[in-house]
Structures are given as structure tokens and as C-alpha cells.
């Protein structure tokens, strides 16, 4: 979808309210790209303001801009602007709002940033706490031993 999705003739406007109270007025067809919002509309037809309690205004703004502009070129440049924390929060937002295109774009972007990096690096960068017990960890390493041994030298 290369053009902006607005159509002056049939654009009903909807208000989305972010978790920090920031309000966004968007066209219905933009809001419908968020399947969570679509479900809300389906349930209560006359709604004018939809609360989005899990997403900050700054991220909702980015999501809305993405929906308006998404195309191959935009997507390729899109992910470069954001730091790790924003990428993760955006992915959480896209997941909550159920926008599959944005989710895919963000998953790819995060994957690219952790490609070929060690588990220690990934753990540090993403603040992942290890909730495995030492026994579980030992069992895991044994289970996945095959992935590391006998790498094709010749």
C-alpha cells in the first residue's frame, strides 16, 4: 500500500487515547488496521474514543505513522531510527494492537540486531533474567549439544 490511506469522502474519525492521556484523531480505515481496535469497534459501534491503556502516546504516534506510510521502502528505513528499548516497546504495542505487518517488521529488525551475537550479549541488551534452575540449564545444554558439535571443517 504505497499511498496514504486517507480518503476524504468516507472518512469517519475516531479518537484513540494512549496510556499517558495523549489523544489521537485517526481515520476509521487507519484505526481498523489495528485488529484490537477493530474488535472494540465491532463490539460497541457508537464509540468515539477508544482507550489504549498499554501504549504510550509516543509509541502510538509511531504506530499510526507506520500504518499510514507502510511500504517496502518505508519499512526498510523505519527500523533504523529506533533504539533497542523503543523497538521492544513498539513490538509490545504492535502485538497488543494486533498489527501483523508492523509486528513482522519489528521482529525482523530486532532479529537483525541480535544476529550472530552471543547469548550473554542478548541477555545484557534486553535485560533478560535467567529463570532456569542450574539443573534445567544443564539439561538444556545437553539437549542442544548437537547444534554445536561437529561443525563441518572438512
Amino acid at each position, binding site marked *: 500500500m504505497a499511498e496514504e490511506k486517507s480518503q476524504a469522502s468516507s472518512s469517519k474519525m475516531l479518537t484513540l487515547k494512549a496510556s499517558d492521556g495523549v489523544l489521537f484523531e485517526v481515520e476509521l480505515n487507519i484505526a481498523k488496521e489495528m485488529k484490537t481496535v477493530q474488535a472494540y469497534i465491532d463490539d460497541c459501534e457508537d464509540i468515539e474514543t477508544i482507550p489504549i491503556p498499554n501504549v*504510550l502516546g*509516543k509509541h502510538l*504516534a509511531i504506530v499510526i505513522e507506520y500504518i499510514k506510510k507502510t511500504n517496502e521502502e518505508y519499512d526498510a528505513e523505519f527500523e533504523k*531510527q529506533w533504539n533497542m528499548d523503543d523497538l*521492544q516497546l513498539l513490538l509490545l504495542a504492535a*502485538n497488543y494492537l494486533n498489527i501483523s505487518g508492523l509486528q513482522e517488521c519489528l*521482529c525482523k529488525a530486532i*532479529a537483525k540486531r541480535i544476529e550472530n551475537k552471543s547469548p550473554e550479549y542478548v541477555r545484557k541488551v534486553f535485560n533478560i533474567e535467567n*529463570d532456569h534452575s542450574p539443573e534445567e540449564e544443564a539439561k*538444556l545444554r545437553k539437549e542442544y549439544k548437537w547444534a554445536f558439535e561437529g561443525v563441518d571443517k572438512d
Partner: protein
Amino acid sequence: MYNFHFISSLFYETLFTFPFPSFNNLNFNPNFNFMGLRFSSFLSNSTVSSGPTLGELPESCVASIIAYMDPPQICQLATLNRAFRAASSADFVWESKLPPNYHLLLAKIFQDFPINLGKRDIYTSLCRLNSLDGGTKKVWVDKGTGKLCLAISSSKGLSITGVDDRRYWNYIITEESRFSTVAYLQHTWWFEVDGEIDFPFPAGTYSLFFRIHLGRAYKRFGRRVCNTEHVHGWDKKPVQFQLWTSDGQYVASQCFLKEPGNWTFYHAGDFTVEDGNSSTKVKFSMTQIDCTHTKGGLCLDSAFIYPSEFKKSKAFLNCS
């Protein structure tokens, strides 16, 4: 399945004020976020990290991210936490790594393959050095790329002219092969090695190589020693390679055998498989037939079939 509840970002309703974001300027100042996190973690006394964590993502999101990794890294990331471990064994992650015709491969390689094994376990099984045709061939999927590889042993896998005549050929035990023996040629006028394979290769382009060693290697006091005294005749005429497929592909080439003392992969030719849903038959041969001079001092390990892209990506294939 380990389900994560979505953790509300309401903890971001901070105790401090921040500049109202401008919706037209999406080049967001990262310092805002960084300072915001620092400030909030200073104020909160909890030991939970104040930043968003990949560990908070639903398992399906984690699986979608790691699906882009290569298998060894997926396995490494499984050790991070329970969500990653669960995501790393998700069927859809491994389905994309398996060769598309893996059902055919399983049927060809294994007699009784359990039908309800998860995709990761199927991948693991295919990555082993699986024996085929009574141990004369080995087939495996390359762990990192998910591509199929095959080796055909010189011991009963390949057809060597005069191999039963101990004046010319004998088998020596070695540790330097995927098979336990390699064929050693003392001397002959008629050097001919033929082979064929009928296998459901996944669609793609493949290269056939002969792994050859000029000279005879053995261990002395634990160190590898190579005797090249008896290497002769290979500089007189090049060796000819030919390759045929059942769907009419044919390629021929030639080259001189060199580099005594090292195992070398000699590239015999390429073939393309269009459809992985049927079996592909390939015949190939290597000859140096010249009755004016003998040649010998050569070890023949096996014929290898590798995906053609390995010629660039695998260092050991770069010489031929």
C-alpha cells in the same frame, strides 16, 4: 506452553514530567528515554530492571524473532530463560529451517520414523551423519543452513576399476574420513572411478566433488606424516570429470591433480534439481586413462555432493 501476561507499561506513568512529544517529528531523542529510565530506576527500589525486557514479550513474539536466526543461534538463545526455551522449540520456527521435502527425506533415510516428533527433533535427526545403502553413503543436513549434503564412500559406494586387484589398489584405515577406510592406489594405467546416486534432493543447485589426497598419510608418534614418494603420473595428463542426470543435464571438465600432502576437493560438476518431490538420479565419473604412463600414490576418500553455495561459504571447498 509458558504464557506470559502482558506487563502493562503503566509503570511508565512516571513521577517526573517529560516534554510533550511532537507528532510530526518522529526522530525521537534517545536521550529522553535513557534519562527517563535512569531516573525511574533511581526512584524505584525494586530489583526488577526498569527497562522493557525482551523477556516480557509473549512467547509468540519471541518465536517470531528467533525464527530469523540460524539453528545454532536458536539453540544458544534457548538458554536465556524459559520463554526463550519454549519459543525455541516452537514447531513453526523449525518448519522454516527444514528442507521443504523433509517428508521424502525421512522416508528415504529412516525405516521407522516416529510420526509425531516435533519439528526441532526432526531437524536434529536429519543433521546427524545418517547412513544410507548399507553404510556406503552418508547423508546429513548442514546444521547452520538446513541444506542437504551427501558423501559416497570409495569403499563399495563408488565403482573403481581394478579395485579388487591388490597390485593396484588397497583399502587403508584412516581417521581422516567420514568413513573408516579410504582407497589407496599404488599404480595403474587405467584410472577410472564411477558412481551414481538416486536420491530425493531438495530443489536447488548442487556441486559434486572428489576428495583426494596425493601421498599416503599416517601417524608417527602421534603426529601426522605424509609419504609422497610414490606419487607419480598426475602431471602428465589432466583427470577428466563427467556428470549426467536422469533429466538430461551433462557437464564435463578436466583438471590436473596437485598439492601432495593435503586432502583436496576436486570439483567435478554441478547439477540442478527443479523439483524436490521426486528422486533425482545422478551418474558421475573421474578418469585418467593413458596406457603410456602409470599414475599412483593417490588416496581416494569419497565423492561429496554439496549445495553449490558452499563453494563460496565453506573454506574447505575453496581449493580445486
